[in-house]
Structures are given as structure tokens and as C-alpha cells.
């Protein structure tokens, strides 16, 4: 009884917060965050250790690091999908407890529901928040137009190309006007040209509402081209190795062209130096595990 009441109050609190915070960027703070997983055999595995990170409101933060350094885990904890084993994650000053309000998440594999049309997929965000269906669909239509998918409302996701599905995912993520946008290698599976187009698209849309962004990627050039700050993480257990400010002016314009700027190249060298050690470290470790077998064959 009491718990239902508390839940209802929390919900009321959340909706109130949503209505005032919508579109306003939020401050993100990770304080000595550690995450351990227990494997089915019972042994513990530390994915993240003592991560300290602050992201100012409206900043675009890219996180790079070797495979398996806990980048994705960091995102799920900011989203509130998972809890830290130690330390605390704060969003807008409040410790994260349950799903963080005002957040949107773009996954590596797009999470469009295959049984719903593109329009219904994009309208899901408002529908889940209790917006009447007709209003939600009108907003979804508007967002589809903004990402260049007008005319594809009644298609199903499998009828779209990879790039178009990413556009739809982007519309679905932005329609709630999030104060935080979490992206987990969102363009990782795309070909190079489509990736560049999508990056430009993302920057254009982000500059309109300026939510705080955490963008996880393997691609250092992509990270520098998009972000205000690049976080380099160490090989697992992951922790923050260094944070670099990217002082390239905004609006950045085409990401393909910024790569030729001298300052871009300079930053790339500098950050790569730091990242390379970790990548090599992670690689030598995985090679030590897989190595003998590989050599024999």
C-alpha cells in the first residue's frame, strides 16, 4: 500500500520534472563509479573501476577506449538501466535511481520494433509518456520530416536501408526532447559514406536543442569531429585515463572536411598517443589468450 503510494508520488514527480526539464540539458556526474559483474560460475569481474567524470550541461562528450573497457556499461548506468556496484551517478544533481528521466538512448543495433510502422515506432516515446495517440503521431510525422524520412511513415523497419533505420532511430530518440542523449556506437554498422552523412545530420539536430550527449565510439576521428570533449578510457577494468577538450569552432560543418584542419590533425595525434597504449595493451591481453591456438593454425 505504502509502496504503491510512493511509486505514484515518484511518477508524479517524474512527469512534473519532464514538463519543466524537457529540452533543457542536464549535468552528468560520475563519482568513483565501480561496476562488477558476477559470472555464472560465481567469479567476479570488474568492468569499471573508480570512474570520475563530469559532463557539463549541453556538452557533447565522446568516449573512446579499447574493446571491453566498459564504455557501454557506463551508458547503461547513466540511463539507470543498471546500478553501479560502488560510487554514485548523479544527473542534474540527483543520484540516479531507476530510469533517469528525460533521457534517450540510441543503441548500436537499432531498437526499432519490426512489427510497428516507422511512424508508430517514432511515436512510441510520447505514447509511453501518456500523450494522446493522435498528437504523438503528428509529432512523429514532424520528426520524420526533420530527419528526411517523409513518405516512409507506413513502411516497416525491414523495408528501410541501414541509414534510413538510423534516421528513424534518431527521430525516435529525439522526439521526447531529451535533456540527455546517450549513444552507443550508433553508426558503427554503417558504411563510411552513410556514417559521415549521419554524423552531419546528428550535429545539425543536436545544435537545435543541445542536450548533453555521451557518445561511445571506437572511431577516434568520429569522436573528435563531433565532440566538445573526448574521454579516453583504459583497457579493462575501465577507468578514465584522460579527458581532452576539442576546441574546434562550432558549428563544425561537414565532418568529412574538418578532418583536414591542422588543429584536428594535431588533436588526433595527441589523443591517439594516449589511446594507442590502451589499445595495444588490450590487444596483447586478448592475443595472449587466443594466441597459441592461432599460431598453430
Amino acid at each position, binding site marked *: 500500500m505504502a509502496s504503491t503510494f510512493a511509486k505514484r508520488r515518484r511518477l508524479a514527480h517524474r512527469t512534473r520534472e519532464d514538463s519543466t526539464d524537457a529540452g533543457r540539458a542536464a549535468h552528468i556526474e560520475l563519482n568513483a563509479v565501480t561496476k562488477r559483474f558476477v559470472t555464472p560460475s560465481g567469479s567476479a569481474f570488474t568492468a569499471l573501476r573508480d570512474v570520475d567524470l563530469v559532463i557539463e550541461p549541453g556538452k557533447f562528450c565522446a568516449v573512446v577506449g579499447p574493446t571491453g573497457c566498459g564504455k557501454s556499461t557506463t551508458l547503461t548506468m547513466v540511463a539507470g538501466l543498471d546500478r553501479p556496484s560502488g560510487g554514485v551517478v548523479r544527473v542534474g544533481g540527483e543520484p540516479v535511481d531507476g530510469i533517469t*528521466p528525460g533521457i*534517450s538512448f540510441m543503441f548500436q543495433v537499432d*531498437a526499432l520494433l519490426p512489427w510497428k510502422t516507422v511512424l508508430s515506432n517514432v511515436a512510441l516515446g510520447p505514447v509511453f509518456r501518456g500523450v494522446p495517440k493522435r498528437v504523438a503521431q503528428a509529432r512523429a510525422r514532424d520528426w520524420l520530416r526533420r530527419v528526411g524520412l517523409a513518405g516512409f511513415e507506413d513502411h516497416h523497419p*525491414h523495408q528501410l536501408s541501414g541509414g534510413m533505420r538510423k534516421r528513424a532511430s534518431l527521430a*525516435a530518440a529525439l522526439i521526447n526532447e531529451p535533456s540527455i542523449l546517450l549513444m552507443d556506437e550508433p553508426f558503427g554498422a554503417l558504411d563510411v559514406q552513410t556514417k559521415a552523412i549521419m554524423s552531419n545530420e546528428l550535429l545539425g539536430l543536436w545544435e537545435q536543442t543541445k542536450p548533453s550527449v555521451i557518445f561511445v565510439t571506437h572511431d577516434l576521428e568520429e569522436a573528435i569531429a563531433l565532440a566538445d570533449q573526448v574521454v579516453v578510457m583504459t583497457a579493462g577494468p575501465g577507468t578514465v585515463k584522460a579527458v581532452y577538450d576539442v576546441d574546434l569552432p562550432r558549428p563544425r560543418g561537414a565532418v568529412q572536411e574538418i578532418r583536414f584542419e591542422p588543429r584536428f590533425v594535431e588533436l588526433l595525434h595527441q589523443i591517439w598517443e594516449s589511446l594507442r597504449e590502451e589499445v595495444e595493451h588490450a590487444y596483447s591481453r586478448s592475443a595472449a589468450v587466443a594466441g597459441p591456438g592461432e599460431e598453430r593454425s
Partner: protein
Amino acid sequence: MSALPLDRDPEMGHGSAFGSYVALDEATIARDARRKVRQRRMLVWLARVAMLVLIVGGWQLLTSIKIVDPFFWGRPSGIVRQLNDWVRHGTAYGSIWLQIWITMKEAVLGFGVGVVTGIVAGVLLGQVRFLAEVFSPYIKVMNAIPRIVLGSLFTVALGLGVSSKVALASVLVFFVVFFNAFQGVREVDRNFVANARVLGASRLAVTRHVVLPSALTWIIASLHVAFGLAIIGAIVGEFLGAQKGLGLVIATAQNNFNPDGVFGAMFIIAILTLTAEGLIGLLERRLLSWRPRSQIEVGVV
């Protein structure tokens, strides 16, 4: 390993007969391919008809020359006579249509109850791990029991009317649907659920928009088997004790040493089941229309 000339492709049919120098244009290739498909289809149908003639004709012949005793095994002409007699004069328990109606009513009701309870239980246990862990040994035991025997209990407890057959049919249907729904819920893409939760979906909304539609592929696959089981439940229930229905007609034919009657009723049941299968197929196509075409066709075949 000698290299074949390109247009010696065996798939091309007659084109290659003219030698490797004949260049085929697109239209000819398309026409050729269409004709091949048509020919093949004809051949399959001819073989099917031939098989029917062979089986029915052979049966009739063997019973005519008394190699097979028609007293035990019936004969096609006798089955036709029996069906004709039922349609014209009815059975011992009223018209044949009434028997069909009763059996179908039992099967459809049992199917409905079994499907609904199976889906609810499967979705619930698939989502709440604690419940699944508590119930799993009992479900395993229930599944190991020959459930058809429950028919005896139901006949005693619920009487000779429709309800005992509905109970038996629904128990048979429940387990098939339940296991598929349970598995379907377990297989839901974690990303879909995480995404819906982040977008602000309540637990109920996640179930409705993500879990149920995702499990539907599994659930619908089970319905084909489930309807067959519902019919079996109804017929066996009538066997065990009833006042009307096709199962009773079969039991009576058995007691009267009338194999033609048994086969005749079997034939009617087969037609009913095939009709129901067709309807479920239509439902499947409608509910799963979002799937890419090829996938649907593979599913139907």
C-alpha cells in the same frame, strides 16, 4: 575440372540444347523459367492424383478380391455409402450436422480457453523469474503426465455434457501454447525492452508493445498444433462418455463392427481440422503481416 561454357548452365533448360553459341535474351530466359515452373507444378499434381487413385483403388481392389477382409478394414465404396447414409438419414443420435456441431463447439471452446490461459500463464512466467522458478518443477511433472487420462476424471466430475470435453481439450491445448509463449517471452530482444523502458514505458506498456508482439511469432506457431490437439481432446472426451458428437459416432461404429463408420467419421474430422488450419493460417498472415515476405512463405510451407 574443366571450365564449362557460361551458357551451358543446366538451369537454362532448352537453351543449352542448341549449343553453347546460342545467346539467350532476357525474355526467352524468363519465359523458359516460367514454363519450367508450370510444368513442375503440373507434374506434382499429377503425381498426387495418381497416388490417390493408387491408394483408394488398391484398397477397393484388395477388399473386392478378399485379400484384405472388408469386415475389419472397410472399403472405400462402403465409406461413401456410410457418409451418404448419415447425410440422408442421420446417425443414431440425430443428424450428422448436429454431431459435427457438438464436436466443433467442444473443440473450439477448449481451444479458446487453452490458448488464452496458455498465453497469460506463459507471458506471466516468462517475465517474472521468481514465479517461473517456483512453478517450473510442477509444470515439468504436469507435462510428463499422460494428460489424455484426465479425460476420465473430467467425465466423472463434469458429466456427459459439453463441459467435460472442453476441459480435456483446453488442458491439451494449454501446455503447447504455454511452452511456446514462455519461450517466446524469453527470446525477446533485450535492446527492445531497454529502449522502451528508457523511453518511459511502464511494465504493462512494455508487455503490450514489446513482449507480446515479439512472442506472437512463437505463439502463433503453436496454434496449428494446438487446434489438432483440441479436436483430439473433444473426440477422446466423447469416446469416454457422451450423448452426442463424432466421438460417440465412432465409438458406436466400433461396437457395431462397422469399420466404414469409423473411417467415415475420421474423414469428416480431417476436413474440419483442415478448414480450421486454413483459418489459423489466415490469422497468422494477418497478424504477422509485418514480416518480410519470404519469411512468411517459408513459415507457411
